[in-house]
């Protein structure tokens, strides 16, 4: 029973956060599940992460430094160490939905602000999120709304806010798109300090009434002299929006779903779950904190263990937690950005406005190789705190351990991870290579540590470890 609670709490923390060290997990699991959920959806109750030391170690985090790698390293540090894991997870979730990329602007401060906006509003009302991204300089530049003028519209943002950010294809017409674009004319940004010679400073939103189309617009059957806020208001109360957001939430937090373009023709894998989330959205008038509370407390969520392929960011942050490193500030965070990149997910730089393809599509021969090689390289050194904690757990038995016991303990420590028989058999055979595990003499201890290291290495290379 106690183990069930532990497994369920571990599941919650993989989804609402980036996993947990054993100590963290045991502390959370000692409390009622609903209480843990309540704390997670109220990040403001927990202290903010202290970044003073981080900034001393990583001078590129200065205001005018245009180096996205360091900022992504900082994001990994926050994923691993924040006492508000869901705040970081929601930011990552909305980053998947409102996919905005660095490549086009090459303007890091603006992208950092963009992610900060997602962090701040992530559990707020969906309207404030839509308003936030519509006024966000990184988004405005990414989808050319600064080129969307009263006299000549650029419909890029008008199209994507409907197709990719709120309702999904099939719920509006091409005319609706044009009218949304007209409503967002004049929404642009300014760069207060010239780029040269001072470097990259933040941009900010400006509304230019003289460049706004004041004509009458019809959108989804409603007519008026709409501005962007009116459009957002209409969008946010559409059932199509509730449904679209719910499917995104399901895919990111519950279980892998078909990709976004299929949603207009393909039913959800669990229609009842979507209906529950839609109802929570509608009843709460688009309050994301309420929707997330319903989601995490639902039976469909609790039953969905290991039903999602981890995205690279989750995978990397989880491996760092397992290795027990980077709990305080050390060099090396920037390498996680590179690792994520070669696994197919460059934070702050999704490949297109459609965001990343998720689930099974994270994995192909190349990315599987990168994932496995990364995980192995991080945990193979048994002197790291994570492997040491596990070795301590095994030696604390105070008696020789049979190969099966060793494997089951390792799997429990890593997850608890549920594995297929063929995986367990291979691990048991590896565990048996030196007979029972003993920690008596120094020589025995050294060999045992080495063997546990190998087991851990193979465990994180397993198929099952790819899932959250």
């Amino acid at each position, binding site marked *: 029973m106690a183990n069930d609670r532990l497994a369920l709490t571990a599941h919650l923390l993989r989804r609402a956060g980036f996993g947990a060290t054993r100590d963290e997990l045991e502390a959370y699991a000692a409390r009622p599940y609903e209480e843990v959920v309540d704390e997670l959806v109220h990040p403001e109750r927990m202290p903010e992460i202290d970044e003073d030391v981080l900034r001393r170690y990583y001078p590129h985090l200065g205001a005018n430094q245009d180096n996205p790698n360091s900022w992504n390293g900082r994001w990994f540090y926050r994923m691993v160490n924040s006492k508000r894991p869901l705040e970081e997870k929601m930011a990552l979730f909305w980053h998947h939905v409102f996919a905005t990329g660095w490549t086009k602007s090459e303007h890091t401060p603006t992208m950092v602000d963009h992610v900060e906006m997602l962090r701040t509003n992530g559990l707020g009302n969906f309207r404030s999120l839509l308003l936030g991204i519509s006024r966000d300089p990184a988004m405005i530049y990414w*989808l*050319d709304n*600064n*080129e969307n*003028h009263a006299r*000549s*519209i*650029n*419909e*890029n943002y008008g*199209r994507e806010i409907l*197709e990719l950010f709120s309702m999904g294809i099939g719920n509006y017409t*091409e005319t609706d798109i044009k009218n949304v674009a007209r409503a967002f004319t004049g929404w642009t940004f300014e760069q207060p300090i010239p780029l040269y010679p001072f470097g990259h400073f933040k941009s900010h939103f400006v509304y230019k009434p003289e460049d706004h189309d004041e004509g009458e617009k019809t959108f989804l059957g409603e007519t008026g002299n709409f501005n962007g806020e009116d459009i957002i208001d209409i969008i946010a109360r559409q059932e199509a929006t509730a449904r679209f957001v719910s499917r995104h939430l399901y895919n990111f937090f519950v279980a*892998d779903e*078909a990709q*976004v*373009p*299929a949603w207009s*023709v*393909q039913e959800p894998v669990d229609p009842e779950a979507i209906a529950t989330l839609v109802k929570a959205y509608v009843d709460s008038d688009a309050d994301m904190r309420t929707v997330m509370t319903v989601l995490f407390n639902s039976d469909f969520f609790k039953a969905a263990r290991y039903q999602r*392929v981890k995205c690279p960011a989750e995978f990397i942050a989880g491996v760092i937690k397992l290795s027990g490193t980077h709990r305080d500030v050390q060099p090396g965070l920037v390498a996680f950005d590179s690792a994520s990149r*070669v696994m*197919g997910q460059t934070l702050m730089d999704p*490949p*297109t*406005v*459609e965001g990343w*393809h998720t*689930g*099974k*599509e994270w*994995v*192909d*021969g*190349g*990315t*599987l*190789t*990168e994932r*496995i*090689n990364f995980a*192995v390289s991080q945990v*193979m050194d048994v002197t790291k705190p994570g492997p040491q904690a596990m070795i301590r757990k095994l030696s604390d038995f105070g008696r020789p351990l049979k190969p099966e016991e060793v494997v089951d303990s390792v799997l429990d420590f890593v997850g608890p991870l549920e594995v*297929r*028989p*063929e*995986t367990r*058999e*291979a*691990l048991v*055979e*590896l565990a048996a290579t030196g007979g029972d595990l003993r920690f008596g003499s120094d020589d025995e201890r050294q060999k045992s540590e080495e063997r546990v290291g*190998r087991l851990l*290495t*193979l465990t994180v*290379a*397993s*198929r099952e470890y*790819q*899932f959250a």
Partner: protein
Amino acid sequence: MAALTRQEGRHHMATNGHTNGHAAKKKEPVLVVVQLSGGNDFMNTVIPFTEGIYYDQRPLVAVPEKNVLPFTDTLAFHPAAKPLLDMYQAGNVAIVQGIGYENSSRSHFRAMDIWHTCEPLKIATEGWLAKVVKLIDPDDTNPLTAVSFGRGLPRALAAPGVTATSVDNLDNYGLLNSIEVAERRAEDLQFFKRMYTPAIGTGIVLDYLSQTGNGVLTGAEMLQEAPKRYTSTVEYPSNSIGKSLRDVARVHTANLGTRIFYTQHGGYDYHAQEVPSHTRLLGELTTSLSAFMQDLREHDAADNVTVLVFTEFGRRIKDNGSGTDHGSGGGAFIIGDNVQGGLYSEYPSLEPSQWLNGEDLRHTFDFRGVYATLLEQWMGIDAPAIVGGTYEQLQPFKPATVGV
């Protein structure tokens, strides 16, 4: 003004059902796909430089007549595409004008899906090239039958039961590469292999992981050889597509049985700042393609390679004051030493009454007909099951080549 270029160049077109020869060939035909992601602006790649309407509609992004590189009386390449002009003049480039399909999607995601699956009307999960892999290697014996370079496997190469290899860094490809002691690595790879044993009833994704893991093991062993065997005097430009095409050359010349190569060149979505972006991209692309063909010839490895360059859609006829929005009626290029260079199909009409939706180029040739052409006339594979029906084909290959 209407039907421009109809009188230009050669028009090679045949209906499906040409003879499929079976002449024995030593080398198996290889297809190299170059995907231009974001929607390449065909009108600014192959430019109708004598058309007033081109200049009227595109006050900002039109290439001035004095700068273009004419190759017929009415058509010219973008000035940055000089290497393409050279290849065209050498007779190695077939330009497929006005490629597209009915109700062209303006969504990148959806449009790319359609090109990758040949399914414009419903969501399909099997890629067209994955189906080709399944036909070429039904027992899944060679994980390198199809190799994609760059991040992530394109949907065109994805289908249940099909192994395709995706390589980012050819020089360090392989599993558990941080285990330094070779014997221990080899031993651990054996345990790894056992963990990845395919078993009945494990579920789709676990099965897929087994297959992928095993494919990597086999593919990595084979790929280790490629960089060791390759030397070349050709220098590729240092950009992403140059690097990818060099990797294609390294693997192709190693003779590992690869029949399909896939590469991508991104950044073509220039709603804004089109002029500098497109110039840079076309320069990168065409110099890389030219180096690639030269490299293959140096290795006597060009005669069994055909390159297809495609993009998900063309762009709007009228510019938006800075760039162009998503449109339709794009263009593709078929390149190779067996290609009969020239113009194929028809340039979409610039006549306003002919515009699609009042603002787009109307496609003149179905993309599935281009795929069918490559499959049947180059790869020697029946197309209908792969492209979903029978489509009009081109005849872009030299007669001696047809029916590989």
